[in-house]
């Protein structure tokens, strides 16, 4: 009976997911496509939880649905609101359909064989076996910050590169929407909650679902909310601080890596006694960097006064304001 209920649950999740994906990709209204995409992200978060990946469920809800959704919603103002019908010729459309179909059949074949393959040496066994020396007990955090720390270091570099591109290309986007008192009142309640939740996710990531990326994205959400509720208030902090926060994560990561290189002759090889502390330090700094990066990405370009902040070194004490 329970198994039947699970099957019904699985089947409805999958059908709803495919319907939302189809809707996102086939609707002619941009606003509708973005809304369906956000809904699909939230449904995916439920599916990650169902497939026993709670770390991903948190990340998808905050980043996949939340931050991506905010990025798209702020970007659609720059474009026409209806999606024009594709200009592709019928022959090309037929070719695209055939190519997609062929790839789908090939993938089905590969996945079918992959699922039926006998279990060789699964990496998960090694992760569980090595977990005691990793400094954290959440296996996902252990993989991200210890066993495959190199990947995460480069991931931070990818995030930084993307944000630097955004900052190089454009000035920030200005919203002309007048913020409502309701949103401002709600923001007063929500922002402290978001900051506390972010700190909790960061701390708990060592032994339970959570970690730097979820915490950073949640902090970015708090910044975006402040920006939406009080668009005209001048921020009382220096843009040098923003630059500093943007790079502190990757800087700390590299410094710790080189320190370990001098100590143990291997880049980023943590001592088991120190690993927990080092991972927490790296994660805290990474959280700050990720939050700043995602918030700047949401603004879509340089905040006001960004160049002046770079030119006049003497003016750094005057609290350069961002709009």
């Amino acid at each position, binding site marked *: 009976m329970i198994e039947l209920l699970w099957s019904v649950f699985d089947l409805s999740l999958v059908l709803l997911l495919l319907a939302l994906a189809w809707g*996102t*990709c086939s609707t002619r209204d941009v606003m509708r496509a973005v809304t369906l995409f956000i809904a699909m992200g939230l449904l995916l978060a439920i599916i990650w939880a169902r497939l026993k990946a709670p770390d991903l469920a948190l990340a998808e809800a905050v980043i996949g649905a939340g931050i991506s959704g905010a990025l798209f919603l702020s970007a659609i103002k720059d474009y026409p609101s209806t999606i024009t019908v594709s200009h592709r010729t019928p022959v090309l459309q037929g070719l695209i359909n055939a190519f997609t179909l062929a790839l789908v059949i090939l993938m089905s074949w590969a996945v079918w064989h992959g699922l039926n393959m006998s279990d060789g040496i699964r990496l998960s066994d090694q992760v569980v076996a090595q977990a005691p020396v990793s400094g954290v007990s959440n296996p996902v955090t252990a993989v991200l910050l210890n066993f495959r720390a190199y990947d995460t270091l480069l991931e931070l570099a990818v995030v930084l590169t993307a944000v630097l591109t955004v900052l190089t290309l454009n000035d920030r986007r200005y919203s002309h929407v007048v913020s409502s008192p309701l949103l401002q009142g709600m923001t007063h309640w929500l922002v402290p909650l978001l900051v506390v939740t972010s700190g909790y996710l960061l701390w708990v990531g060592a032994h339970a679902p959570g970690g730097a990326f979820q915490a950073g994205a949640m902090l970015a959400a708090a910044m975006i909310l402040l920006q939406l509720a009080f668009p005209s208030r001048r921020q009382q902090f220096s843009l040098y601080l923003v630059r500093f926060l943007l790079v502190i994560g990757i800087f700390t990561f590299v410094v710790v890596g080189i320190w370990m290189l001098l100590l143990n002759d291997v880049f980023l090889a943590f001592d088991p006694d120190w690993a927990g502390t080092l991972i927490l330090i790296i994660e805290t700094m990474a959280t700050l960097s990720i939050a700043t990066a995602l918030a700047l990405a949401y603004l879509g370009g340089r905040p006001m006064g960004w160049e002046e902040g770079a030119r006049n070194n003497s003016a750094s004490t005057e609290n350069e304001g961002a709009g």
Partner: protein
Amino acid sequence: MISEQLLYSLAGIGLFGIGLRATLLHHMLIPRLLALNVCGAGVFLIFITIAYAGAESRPDAVPHALVLTGIVVAVSATAMSLALGRRLEALNDE
């Protein structure tokens, strides 16, 4: 266990197919990026389905970490593409 894995990996393949087809068919930036994100979500779903090892046993943490990285890289790439698109629009308007 195989049946759940099969169901969710088929959903992942379906998502990939829907996203890929729409990415190739659309020529406007935002619908294209949305479709590309759908396509990526399909790949993530296949990955996590393979990591899933039944209701009783512990799933494989390595694909989870990879997909977590993937989600963050996807949002960074999306932000970058939107910025590039906005710059192109500004240049076309001039």
